[in-house]
């Protein structure tokens, strides 16, 4: 078992399982509705040229979010 870390600190190209999530905030409700739920597997595809925002792959599609949001999403890297 690896330690959970914020999504914003995940290495590019790695997959992780989503663990924890802030309750409040419209942005997080939307991320949930876009299919990011505890237990969902995602992959960090890349960051934008200036390091922010991030692009992830989840449920077969690509989604972007800012670091300020990714800081609050805890994930657990999947052993390769």
């Amino acid at each position, binding site marked *: 078992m690896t330690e959970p870390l914020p999504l914003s600190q995940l290495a590019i190209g790695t997959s992780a399982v989503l663990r924890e*999530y802030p*309750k*409040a*905030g*419209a*942005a997080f*409700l*939307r*991320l*949930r*509705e*876009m*299919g990011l*739920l*505890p237990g969902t597997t995602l*992959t960090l*595809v*890349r960051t*934008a*040229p*200036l*390091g*922010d*925002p991030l*692009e992830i*792959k989840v*449920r*077969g*599609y*690509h*989604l*972007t*979010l*800012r670091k*300020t*949001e990714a800081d609050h999403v805890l994930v657990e890297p999947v052993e390769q």
Partner: protein
Amino acid sequence: MSLPQHIKTPSRTPVYALVGNPNCGKSTVFNALTGLKQKIGNYPGVTVERKVGTAYSQHGQPMTIIDLPGAYSLAARSPDEAVTRDVLLGRRADTTMPDRVVCVVDGSNLERNLYLVHQILDLGRPVILVVNMMDLATAAGLQIRIGRLEKELGIPVIATSASRGVGLIELKLALSRTDLPLPKHRWEVPAPIAPAVAELQASLQDNDGKPPLIARAEALLLLTDQDPVRVAGSNPLSPTTAASLQNWKNRFERTGTDWSAILVGARYDAIAALAATCVESTDTPHLRQSTSDKIDAVVTHGVWGWAVLGGIMTALFLSIFTFAEYPMNLIDAGVSALADAVKANLAPGDLRDLITDGAIAGVGGVVIFLPQILILFFFIGLLESTGYMARAAFIMDRLMAYVGLSGRSFIPLLSSFACAIPGIMATRAIADPKDRLTTILIAPLMTCSARLPVYAVIIAAVIPAEKVGPGIGLQGLVLFVLYLAGIVSAMVAALVLRRSVTKGKASGFIMEMPRYQMPPIRDLLIGLWQRAWVFLRRAGTIIFMATVILWVLLSFPKAGEGESQLDASIAGQVASAMHPAFEPVGFNREMTLALVPAMAAREVAVASLATTYAVDAEDEAETEQALRDQIAARWSLPSALAFLAWFVFAPQCLSTIAVARRETNGWKWPVVMLVYLFAAAYIFAGITYWGAIALGL
């Protein structure tokens, strides 16, 4: 439940709502069903585009189809999504509640697309599910068992590849069915929130007069809507229901029940169970790189990404100015010919002048921008439908965040270099209302093509044509500084606005990166045709009125012997009265005079100055040449520089103000825009004037 299992077609023309996630091909389905039988307008009170079309069944019966804005969820996050939610729930008095719902989903991205469908199944309306982009799903190694989906959901499911015209006849047949089954509703509300849903549902039925299933769907929605977007034209909740909702929210808060997570989680669990039985993956797509990934490796690359963006921007500007030249000359010639024809057939007098100098010249002066606007919209449509726009927003987001905006504001601002009107119209794609408003307010600061004639004449007159470095002319440098001043002040204005009048939380950048697609040329052309029509209709009404009024102000009262018409006219007298206010920033009386007719459009300032200096010239080139000499002889350098500074900021374009009014639905924001831009124009003209004097220029 005692509801009928089948709902008959109503006796009037049935109303269908077309809903789906953005990027699911919904517009292609809508265009394929209705062709050019579409009406485009706005929902009253909101700036959301309303598209209604008529389709014909296989038996020739008309059907009304409302193309609702793309939405990811009924828990709305943008004005677009709020309209979709409110129309579906029958909350809007201005739109008939749809009898039936057609849900379009992207077959290659089924799970997330089904989330919205799952919410809609709650509504208790007959639903037809369209699984679109089947070709892409197959290419991605996904096998969707349509028959199984039909059985599980209990509704008609149609497989289509709308961009290739596959499955559309089957869809029309389904639309023509006189009876459609209600969806099987096997989804249970999760236990921890069930009592709240039951109580809210009862209250909505009793106090808000909602039918049972709509009440249930609304109850579920009210619990997830943490920050509900309210839009004008929607009915508010009854006080009893609102109190009950608050009561439950407080109770959940105390017990630490995360009701929205429970609800969303339960829906995705149900969807996962459905997908497990209906979708089979014969491929392991995560193991191979898709074409989109390969393109993105370049397009979002730290070096190449900027090169591609720069290249596309350059191509965009070059094509706006080069391709548009020929049709613009044609329109110009046509307008002149029309004016000449009127002159030849009417006796000289006020009526003739009103028609030629007022109506034809005024409306013609705006219609001439139609080719540029269409080219710009074609390019924007192309970039948007292929998926590149999302990438441009992605790489620009960090830069835009410095001034409190997001990557989504980038394209509207880029468009504003051609003309602020299409730029402001393009802000509809921005979800966050405050971001959108800020973008509208700063768009006029981008140097539009109408400022070029003004800059060109004055720079040529007062700036010496000398070199300041290898290959860099002083005149070109001044022009570049003026463009730069526009960009920098737009960014500063955004920064200030986001901390004052459009204050709010940073909007974040949760955006889907759609797959790259071949551009749907048919959809693009239908869109262009609609743009052209809206633009021409506006030119024929608002702009026509404005130019006629301006002509009257410039033509009356009539000048006496030896007096110039401009001096004698009402506009001229207004300018004389205004002059004391403009003296402190270095404007002479002719400059002040030029500002009045330039309210219609900036480039009119040049024509106005030319008239004022009574230049007797045969053609335009000679006019400009002569005007240049007049300005060089009569204006001091500080005054001329102050005039240039004025035009960097001054919102002198009636059409932009009219569009801003329409897009923000009221006079408040256009007035804010006018006030801050005129104040900036005045202040910076003054700084430039006195600065130049202090420097001894």
